[in-house]
């Protein structure tokens, strides 16, 4: 029985005796592992991006907007009267609250206005909202507080800032307690939102200011349109399963209230979760596809190892015969050649992993995706390359072990 240390020494001696050949043989596995690692990391990055945007939009969310959806996906204003954007009202929102499976309903009114503080100007998205908006959209407060319903009804001059706005206008001091000026009025900052980061559509979601809905209606967006219209109603369902039914219920309810028929709707209910989920699934399939294609190149690397090991067994037939004559058992020869193959493939796997991570880093920074590389990926790459070594090294090693020493010694 051979000692493990001697086994390793003899395998490494054999590989070092022909370094160029060993390197070229490992190259197949290097390329295979590098591309698997890079592709899977790229796909996982894209997937993480999409998943992040699902979470940031708010889960189990329906968004009701005025105007009908065209088949192309855009939203068309109702024809006639220029009333197309004024079809959703606070009363619609209150009616939706009565539906089954609803957790939160948050009507909101969007306004564009400059925000001024510390002599700095900023142009965020300003949303007039009710306190339930935080629940519906999965926002959290980082510091301070959200305004309550009473403050909302009283149209108080208070705001909650998104992280970007807070950073831009108050780079050095705590914004809570400070004031900003909007549309000529002064507003007290009562809270700052936790950051959500970029949305999947490349929009900075933190570039936002939340003010009480009544405040926005009365003091910022002015008296355009009817006093009780809103630009959006966010509806949070109690579960993902309830989402589909709730969407239909909302549509039916609004058709009754607006006296429209299907196909002539003056509103659109968007199920964002299902859209982004489909996108996430697509990227996942994409990841598997890329990984699969790369795995084929790893397979080719394995065949390269098998090829070279078979050549090596043929070249070293006499050596194998001698080793057997001197007392090597079949297992000793099997392990020696098997270890050579596994060493080649694992060394290739480690180098490939390094190159793959570098490649993934390059590509994700090129596409501004998050770099997702887990220990799990690394372990899988190394484990898979070891498996390739075992699978493709087994046959040549078995051939070597089974050689007849008399025949082998007779060989020139």
């Amino acid at each position, binding site marked *: 029985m*051979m000692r493990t240390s001697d086994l390793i020494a003899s395998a490494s001696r054999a590989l070092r005796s022909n370094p160029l050949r060993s390197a070229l043989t490992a190259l197949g596995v290097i390329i295979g592992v590098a591309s698997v690692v890079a592709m899977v990391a790229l796909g996982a990055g894209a997937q993480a991006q999409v998943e992040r945007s699902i979470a940031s939009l708010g889960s189990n969310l329906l968004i009701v907007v005025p105007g009908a959806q065209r088949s192309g996906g855009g939203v068309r204003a109702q024809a006639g009267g220029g009333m197309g954007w004024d079809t959703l009202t606070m009363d619609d929102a209150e009616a939706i609250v009565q539906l089954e499976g609803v957790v939160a309903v948050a009507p909101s009114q969007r306004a564009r206005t400059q925000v001024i503080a510390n002599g700095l100007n900023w142009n965020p998205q300003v949303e007039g909202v009710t306190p339930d908006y935080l629940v519906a959209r999965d926002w959290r407060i980082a510091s301070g507080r959200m305004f309550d319903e009473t403050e909302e009804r009283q149209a108080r001059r208070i705001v909650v800032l998104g992280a970007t706005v807070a950073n831009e206008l108050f780079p050095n001091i705590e914004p809570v307690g400070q004031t900003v000026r909007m549309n000529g009025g002064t507003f007290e900052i009562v809270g700052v939102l936790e950051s959500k980061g970029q949305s999947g559509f490349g929009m900075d979601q933190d570039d936002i200011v939340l003010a009480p809905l009544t405040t926005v209606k009365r003091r910022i967006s002015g008296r355009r349109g009817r006093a009780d219209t809103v630009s959006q109603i966010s509806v949070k369902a109690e579960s993902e399963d309830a989402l589909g039914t709730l969407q239909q219920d909302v549509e039916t309810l609004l058709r009754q209230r607006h006296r429209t028929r299907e196909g002539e709707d003056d509103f659109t209910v968007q199920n964002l979760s299902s859209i982004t989920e489909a996108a996430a699934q697509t990227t996942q399939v994409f990841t598997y596809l890329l990984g699969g294609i790369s795995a084929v190149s790893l397979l080719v690397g394995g065949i390269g190892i098998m090829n070279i090991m078979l050549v090596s067994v043929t070249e070293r037939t*006499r050596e194998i015969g001698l080793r*057997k*004559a001197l*007392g090597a058992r079949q297992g000793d020869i099997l392990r020696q050649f098997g270890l050579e193959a596994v060493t080649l493939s694992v060394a290739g796997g480690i180098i490939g992993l390094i190159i793959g991570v570098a490649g993934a880093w390059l590509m994700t920074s090129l596409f501004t995706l998050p770099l997702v590389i887990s220990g799990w990926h690394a372990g899988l790459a190394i484990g898979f390359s070891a498996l390739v070594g075992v699978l493709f090294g087994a046959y040549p090693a078995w051939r070597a072990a089974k050689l007849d020493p*008399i025949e082998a010694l007779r060989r020139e």
Partner: protein
Amino acid sequence: MASLIQARDLTKLYRMGDETVHALAGVNFDIARGEYCAIVGPSGSGKSTLMNIIGGLDTPTSGRIVIAGNDIGAMADDDLAVFRNQTIGFVFQSFNLLPRMTALENVELPMIYGGIAPKERRERAAALLERVGLGARMTHRPTQLSGGQQQRVAIARALAGNPALILADEPTGALDTNTGKEILALFGRLNREGATVVLVTHDHEVAAATKRTIEMRDGHIVSDRINGGTPRHDAHL
């Protein structure tokens, strides 16, 4: 003295299509511990076949051969490997040294398969190289050594497992006459120091350097005599 090798009705058949070659056609002999013995005969007489069986590289078709208590015909592959490692020291016509290893590493090789620890292995290999007169050549590679020196390394390697039997197949076949004589003298010395040596040759002059000659022809033993004396135990013929 108890026999080291005991061969009874040993046959080895090779089937070549319809034809059957009797490489060994019923061979009987005994070799005792401490003997220095040559197996001679013309090409094709069955010498190599016999040597492969004695060395545990091959098994007989029928008959029985027991070497140092090992019944060769009844042993499994791995047991034969251990037998070769522990009981037999091979010396080949073409030396069969591994070219990338030093003399010392070549001598260590059988001890690697014997599971002997590196330190002990190295010390023992060095001592053996001293014993065959190559103390100054330990780190040389085979290509840096003459034929005679290479065969000395091979003999040191054969001694590494402290074998009961040294088995040499045409050990002088690749050497010039003088170098061949030196190698035979080395075998003679090892034999005087207690080693049992069996060498296979087609050369009667080489055989004459040993103490006993077993002559083969067409798979049979045709004579078995003490060199410089009269034929011995004809009973087995």
